[in-house]
């Protein structure tokens, strides 16, 4: 499910099945030299998140991406979102990001960190298989949480 009105309607009717929220976290770099890499990893993350949504449409809702700039305190940012999201009806909440700063933060939500892969120059087939591989690695993280 995506965070739009029609999917949300379906979610509200099927709350017992759609119980997982995936929140993309995106670091927006402001220094010129790092902007390319930042855009590339955003591209990768959003493509991956779209693919996750396609595969798990009936169980996972993808939240709009949360973005932050370098000076923002990730720790505090994470805690605030985390506190708010625990009030939501979702049973399982995952943060997904390519920013390694999140790996050292201790929050209630599961943080799925993956290194960014520059997919922008790949042809569709290769891109597809890369995304598949990434999802295959993430899948156990989802299922182990679901069977709890």
């Amino acid at each position: 499910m995506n965070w739009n009105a029609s999917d949300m309607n379906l979610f509200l009717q099927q709350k017992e099945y759609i119980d997982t929220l995936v929140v993309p976290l995106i670091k927006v770099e402001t220094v010129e030299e790092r902007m390319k890499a930042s855009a590339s990893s955003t591209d990768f993350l959003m493509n991956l998140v779209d693919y996750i949504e396609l595969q798990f449409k009936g169980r996972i809702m993808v939240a709009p991406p949360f973005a932050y700039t370098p000076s923002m305190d990730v720790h505090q940012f994470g805690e605030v979102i985390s506190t708010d999201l625990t009030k939501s009806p979702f049973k399982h909440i995952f943060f997904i990001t390519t920013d390694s700063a999140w790996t050292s933060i201790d929050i209630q939500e599961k943080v799925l960190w993956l290194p960014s892969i520059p997919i922008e120059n790949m042809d569709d087939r290769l891109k597809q298989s890369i995304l598949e591989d990434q999802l295959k690695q993430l899948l156990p993280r989802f299922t182990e949480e679901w069977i709890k």
Partner: protein
Amino acid sequence: MSSKVSRRQFLNYTLMGVGGFMVSAAAMPMIRFAIDPVLASADGGDFVPTDQKADDVTETPVRVDFTIKDRKDAWYKSDVSNTAWVYKDGDKIIALSPVCKHLGCTVNWAGDDTHPNEYFCPCHGGRYEKNGKNVPGTPPTGPLDQYEVEVVDGLVHLGKTMPNTLV
């Protein structure tokens, strides 16, 4: 009766003629619009070529990815990636849509080790038999959709999805 057209008759004819013309001017487009769907030429389905050779298809479903180029959704143009599970039933090639009938997740053939000869939906454990028939007692309420299949030059071409005809 005189053969001369009286003034009254002449006016009647003229009025009828003009009136008839006006009515038909209004009615013709309406009729044309009404029968338009009938006249529309059936464009031979939008079949999309895949890389799958028809001869290589076996009785075990294989995943076939294909891309619909330049799909137009109003002004938004995009390439849509799609997947099908393709297998052979006798001489017929069957292509099933991987979209779970429960809430739209993507199902996989032999996705669950305990049910190796079924499609499995990882979201809520929905299962389907090889022909797409949903296994009772699992969440899905209907069978998997089917693609229209055509073989052109030995390659499998897939068309639109339609309700399952095998179950």
